[in-house]
Each structure stands twice: as C-alpha cells, then as structure tokens.
C-alpha cells in the first residue's frame, strides 16, 4: 500500500528524467545538424565554417 504516493513520485521522476535525456539528445543532434552560427574573432564577426 503506497499511501504517501512514493510510487507516483518515483515514476514521475523517472519519466521526467527519461524525457529530459531524450530532449537533450535531440538538442545534441540538432546542434550538429543545423548550420553553425557566425563566430566572433578579434577583428569582428565572420561566417563560421560548416560543421
């Protein structure tokens, strides 16, 4: 009997972490797939080379 709802909390915590890992992995993938943004140099801004 889980009167205090620990099972719910643990289940929700695990789901949250799995979702976060999934979304984080998606950002990792997109970070390398999307074009790189311009980078700054000492002289100013210049177009970044591709990934």
């Amino acid at each position, binding site marked *: 009997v889980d009167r*205090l*709802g*620990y099972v*719910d*909390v*643990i289940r*929700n*915590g*695990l789901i*949250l*972490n799995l*979702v*976060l*890992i999934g*979304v*984080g*992995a998606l*950002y*990792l993938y997109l*970070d*390398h797939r*999307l*074009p*790189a*943004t*311009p*980078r*700054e140099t000492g002289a*100013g*801004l*210049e*177009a970044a080379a591709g*990934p």
Partner: protein
Amino acid sequence: VTALTSLRRVSSLWYLILFAVSATGVIWQLVLFLQGVGVVTGAGGQLPGHLTLLVRFFSYFTTEANILVAVTSAPLVLRPGHDGPVWRVLRLNALFGITVTGVVYSTLLRGIVELHGAAAFTNTLVHYLSPLLAVVGWLIFGPRPRITENTLMLSLIWPVLYVAWTFAHGAVATRSSTWTGSGMSTSSGTASSSTWC
C-alpha cells in the same frame, strides 16, 4: 559583415527580451507566491511560513528552468557567440528544461488551476513566452555548435539532483502537510492532481 553585425544586434535584442521575460516572470511569481497567490494550502486553508514558501517556489521545475534561461541568456546579450564549458552545460539544461516546461504545461497542466490578473500574466511569461523565445532564439541565433556528448552527460546532473531533491522534499512535505496529494487545494483554486511544475 554588415549583415552579420545586424544579426548580432537582433540576437542581442532577442536575448535581452528573453532575459527580461524569464527574470521578470520568476521574480514576479516569487512576490505573488509569498503573498499566497496560487499557494497550495493545508486542509485548514492556512498559508505555510515564508521559508516553506521559498523552498517550495525554488523546487518548482518551471522556476529552475526559467532561472537557467535567464542566467544563460544574459551573456548572450553582450556576446552573441558566448561560450564556456560551464555555460555550455547550463545552456543545454536551460534549453531542455524550458522545452519540457512549455510542452508539459501546455499539454498536461494548463487547466489545473484557473489564474487571473498578475498571476495569469506571470504564468504566460514563464510557461509560454519564455519557452517559445528560448527555443526559437536557439534555432535562429544559436550560438551553435555548443553541445557535445560530454556536455549532454554533464547536463544530466541537474535533472538527477532535481529528482533526488523532489523525492526528499516530497517525503518531508507529505508528512507535514497535504500539498503533494491528489485533489489538493490552493489559495486561488483547486488542483486536480499532484503538481511539481
């Protein structure tokens, strides 16, 4: 170079707005929370003390995600190409944290508590505007690439700590009050399920 300079200006302005939205949202919500707006109360309807309220407020996933957004957006106002090992991890935390905040709130939690006035406004800032500006800003302005496998692994520290803290906090809070149970009541309405967002 002129186009790049313009892009840099727009990027700075974008991240300035994002910083203002997330920081204002969190600070304003904190003020409202300390005044008892939207606070989950015990069976008798009495408000918890300020220390308890502070702990609860900073335990909300939404609060932490918006703080991360504000902290990682601020350097981008001055330097759109900002980089750094710690910033990279916090930035990824901010991005996936605010993404989950926006998606979970708009799909699962939106109708739980009916909000009015300032509470509704700040709710829009932290649950809708901040996620939208953060994700769209990252897609348009980046900066990219800033994420590696190592960044991703290190970025898992925050959610793991968050869940560990939530377990401990939930255990203590459940013993001392009814705020984690289903059907909890708030000072501004009735919540239908346990909410940590």
